[in-house]
């Protein structure tokens, strides 16, 4: 449900060498060129877009490793 917004955010902030729309939900974003600096921008953009705050436990590479993982985390935080 949130994948589309997350793809938009990735397109804007991830600075990946490929088109984000060609990535599957489970593709590893770090394997596809995501850097730690861009991850911070994505984190901030997702927080602003969904009005959420990632707790410390979610601030790790695993959370940001794929679109699927981001959707799961956003869903979890919105349902709290």
């Amino acid at each position: 449900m949130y994948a589309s917004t997350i793809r938009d955010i990735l397109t804007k902030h991830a600075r990946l060498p490929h088109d984000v729309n060609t990535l599957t939900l489970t593709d590893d974003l770090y394997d596809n060129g995501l850097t730690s600096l861009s991850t911070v921008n994505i984190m901030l953009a997702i927080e602003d877009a969904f009005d959420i705050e990632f707790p410390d436990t979610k601030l790790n590479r695993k959370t940001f490793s794929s679109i699927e993982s981001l959707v799961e985390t956003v869903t979890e935080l919105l349902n709290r």
Partner: protein
Amino acid sequence: MLTPEPNSIPTVLSDAIHTAPTKTFVETQPSSLPYLFSPSCPQVARQFGYFATKSAPVFAWQHFSCATITRKTIVILCYPMGYEYTHSHRSFQHWADQLAAIGCLVIRFDYSSTGDSPGRELPDDLLPIWLANITAIAEQARTAYPEHQLCLAGLRFGATLAYLAAQTLQADHLIVWEPIVQGRRYLRELQALAKFGVDSEETDADYTEFAGFLMSHATAKTLKTINLMDVPLLPSTRVLCIYREDGNHNNDFTNQLQVQGIQVEIQCQPGYEDMLAVPHQTLVPHQAIAATATWLAQGTRCFSESSQPLPMLSEINLENEIQEQGIWYDAIGTAATSTATTVQNDSLQHRLFAILTRPKTVNTKHPLVILLNSGAVHHVGPNRVYTHVARTIAEAGLLCVRLDIEGLGDSFKPDLIRENHPFQTTTQANLATAMDYLKHCRLAQDFIVGGICSGAHAAFHGGLSLGAPVIREVMLINPLVFYWQDGMTLDIPGDIQIAQDSKYYSSSMRDPKKWLKFLTGKASTASIVKFIKDRFVERARVILKHLRESVLNEHSPLSADLLRITHANIPISLLISASDPGLELVKSQARRTLKKGQSSGIIRVKTFAGANHTFSRLQHRNDLMAYMHKKFSDEYQ
């Protein structure tokens, strides 16, 4: 020690050779320092030096117009911190030039314990020191020009510091570009960055490392307490807030300013993300910079007088009796005594800048170490590594110069299109110019050239083109490319990617979590298959090369060039981080030459366990410094 020719050598250098090294800071009038004219604003001159502050001097640049125009306004630009400082360095040069072009005297400087300024990042609380730096410079400016107005301007955390200083200094103008309003939120951003690092690990150290930069817990504690919403400004301060065009900014901060009766203008400008991209991809946000100049011009008056820079120190003493100073390394034969009023566009047009670090006693029989730009990062190097390396080498008794090649850092290139490209076509010519200058100053007769990544590429080719006896040693730290050609990608080249992938997959083979990911179908099978195919082809190519090298005595270009350097009796030091593919690269192209060179001792290989390409962790930087100190102390004392 040799005697220099007094008329051709900058005073500060000849002083250094002739006088005791324990003297206090040398106060030099601006008239004795040469200038650089901006490539984008030909009437704007730049001058480097150090401003005395309460804690220690700070390295600074002044930008001023040589045309008869002044706005009687001094602008102090405040850098952001951490990686944002390194990435925005280039844009700050352009920003300073543009504000100088409208008639302001503009100062940009490295806060204490950052960049080229003295000091270590740990363990002090640096925030009060950084605010004191700004205050000290502003007070010197006001003493010299009591009738001038003061403008503070900053980006990100620099904007926060500018805001805080504007309150106490009662600044007339304030430009805040994407300011950090709440320290707590920014700290969380930095902590997230630390956790997102590929080698992130939990430690109980009293500091945090984020993207190669250090923050003590004392600094973090103070940072956490900052909330600009709680800090009122004087209503007389004009404020310009710049936000990124593509971001959602919070109006609370600007609303709060307006409630205080402050004249605040809000502008959304493009170019923010490109300004903070990785150094070789940064783009200068010209539109946003022009907007700041227009805004400042609207709030100030223009007078028909020329600007004069503030007096600065030309050199400083550091710990362990080492000294440091900026130099124009293309300054051979130019008089160093022209005054600002006599400066013409056709004289003293120095373009090539470097920083010289000098030990307590200079022995001109020792080689001088030259560090060449790493990527498109200015002479401080990635994560300030070069600053530490230079000072460590000086502590070990050798002179060290960290160069900015034309188009990089604070050296400029008339051709702005190629500005900031890590592989400049003029690198070898610039290196030769630097050596001529340093020889002319009688500081050294021969040199050790080294650098990280593209700096290693430049050093390797310096060894080849300049050769013995001028090159005493080549020091290659984490080379990734040995033969750069125009048109090649600045991303990781294919064969290196395979070497890096090999390291990744061989470590994954030992990681149960990766096996679980693979067995549950969550791993990217396509990537693994592609890697196996590429690896197979690469291995076959390497085996063929080895066969040719051993059976037919046929050498790859790298093998032949390593032999050319070592046959000239120039030792090669290969300093390689364990996770970096540099050694694999040499092995794949010149295994036999490497092996023979190691046996004879002319090629030395040192591997740094756990370190990454840019030595981004403190522990690994300390390992590198310890190695450098021992190497140079043992070999030259």
